[in-house]
């Protein structure tokens, strides 16, 4: 039995074969710019519309990951992909150009780790050897769908986050490599009964807290086992809240906890309000920067918790709250 406790699983043979991240201009200009595989100089990413720009990012990351793995298209058994656009069109439209079976997934900004969990189950279960997990987000497509037109002059509060323009790809395989995926905890949808769409970090923080706690409980462990505890896009205010919740339990996670939304931009100089957010936020930072540190031996074992706010403007307008979901995955260094 590979299921542990109520919500977790153990993987025996799931490794990271390759990974690729393409970003937009603001992400490249940020502190992690040099870790990305490629970038575009403007938000249009050599395309005519925002949606096509996101598709181009997605395509670049997808092809680069396959190329870095030294594989050809037909050796990839599945693409598991998701993004923030309605009907997850970005991934599906890109996949029409490839001879690879596709599974579309969605759990808002927790999609990256959801993909890895499902991909891990496929690889570990022997249903495929190579599984490519994809995700993307684009600042302008997200603004268009969830908020206001990009040039609209409405004021955003300090709790608002900036959707990351990027696409991240990670190729999972059953052949041993230097990074192994060993554990995962599947999150539950949790509704904190909060309804501010311009403060999503705080709407997601409770779900991150519950997933991390459940992870510790399922594996009968504590945070001491991990070198880092990473969350996807809680950003400044969400992180504060997560730390407070653990503090209430007598646990101080502040020294080990980092948030991808705070790592990807320089909040002081880049005018990003509370930090970065979006499907690709967790993917871009984890695949490029954190796994690199793991590979180099700076860390041995990290817990990555992608956090998603299941926000939809239509249901929000019907006076509904914004539930959150968070999925956790453990990456370990293998010598």
């Amino acid at each position: 039995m590979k299921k542990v406790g109520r919500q977790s699983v153990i993987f025996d043979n799931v490794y990271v074969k390759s990974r690729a991240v393409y970003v937009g201009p603001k992400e490249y200009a940020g502190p992690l710019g040099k870790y990305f595989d490629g970038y575009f100089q403007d938000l249009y990413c050599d395309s005519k519309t925002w949606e096509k720009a996101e598709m181009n990012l997605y395509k670049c990351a997808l092809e680069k990951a396959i190329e870095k793995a030294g594989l050809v298209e037909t050796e990839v058994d599945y693409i598991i992909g998701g993004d923030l656009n309605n009907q997850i069109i970005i991934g599906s439209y890109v996949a029409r150009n490839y001879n690879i079976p596709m599974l579309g997934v969605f759990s808002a900004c927790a999609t990256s780790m959801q993909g890895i969990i499902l991909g891990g189950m496929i690889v570990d279960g022997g249903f495929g050897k190579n599984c490519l997990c994809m995700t993307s987000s684009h600042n302008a497509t997200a603004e268009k769908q969830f908020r206001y037109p990009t040039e609209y002059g409405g004021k955003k509060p300090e709790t608002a986050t900036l959707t990351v323009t990027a696409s991240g790809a990670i190729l999972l395989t059953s052949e041993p490599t230097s990074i192994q995926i060993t554990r995962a905890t599947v999150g539950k949808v949790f509704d904190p009964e909060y309804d501010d769409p311009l403060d999503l970090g705080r709407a997601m923080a409770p779900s991150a807290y519950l997933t991390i706690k459940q992870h510790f409980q399922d594996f009968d462990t504590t945070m001491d086992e991990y070198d880092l505890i990473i969350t996807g896009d809680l950003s400044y205010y969400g992180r504060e809240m997560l730390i407070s919740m653990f503090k209430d339990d007598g646990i101080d996670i502040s020294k080990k906890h980092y948030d991808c939304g705070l790592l990807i931009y320089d909040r002081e100089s880049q005018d990003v309000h509370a930090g970065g957010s979006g499907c690709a936020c967790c993917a871009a930072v984890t695949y490029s920067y954190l796994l690199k540190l793991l590979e180099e031996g700076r860390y041995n074992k990290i817990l990555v918790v992608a956090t998603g706010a299941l926000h939809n403007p239509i249901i929000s307008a019907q006076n509904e709250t914004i539930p959150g979901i968070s999925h956790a995955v453990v990456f370990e260094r293998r010598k």
Partner: protein
Amino acid sequence: MNQKISKVMQETKPKKPILKNALRAFLVGGLICLFGQVLIFLFQKGFNFSKEEASNITVGLLVLIACLLTGFGVYDRIGQFAGAGTIVPITGFANSMASSALESKSEGIIVGIIMNMFKLAGSVIVVGVLSAYILGLIRYLWGLIV
């Protein structure tokens, strides 16, 4: 568990800088109005327009400036600083239409621009017409009584 979470949620709620926002809005909104007043004055004195003509041209000019600033990607930055200061004056109305039009340009002229141009501004028109009707009615009824 839920109680604990909502407790922490309440405790860590960031405060909104209402006074700072109001001051900025007052300043920038006031400056826009002052600029408009100066224009009206100039059109009246310099070009001998009547007061009504001068204000019409001024409104047109302010709308044009706001649309241009929106197109150049500047207006949203001013808006982030000024808040209500740039949304409430007529420039805000122009910005909401221009930004919606720009945003939906990718879906073509009919399904995109024409259908979406009033996406944000439409609410202002509906509320404007409705409140004008109600106030007009009150004024009419008041006239009957007094």
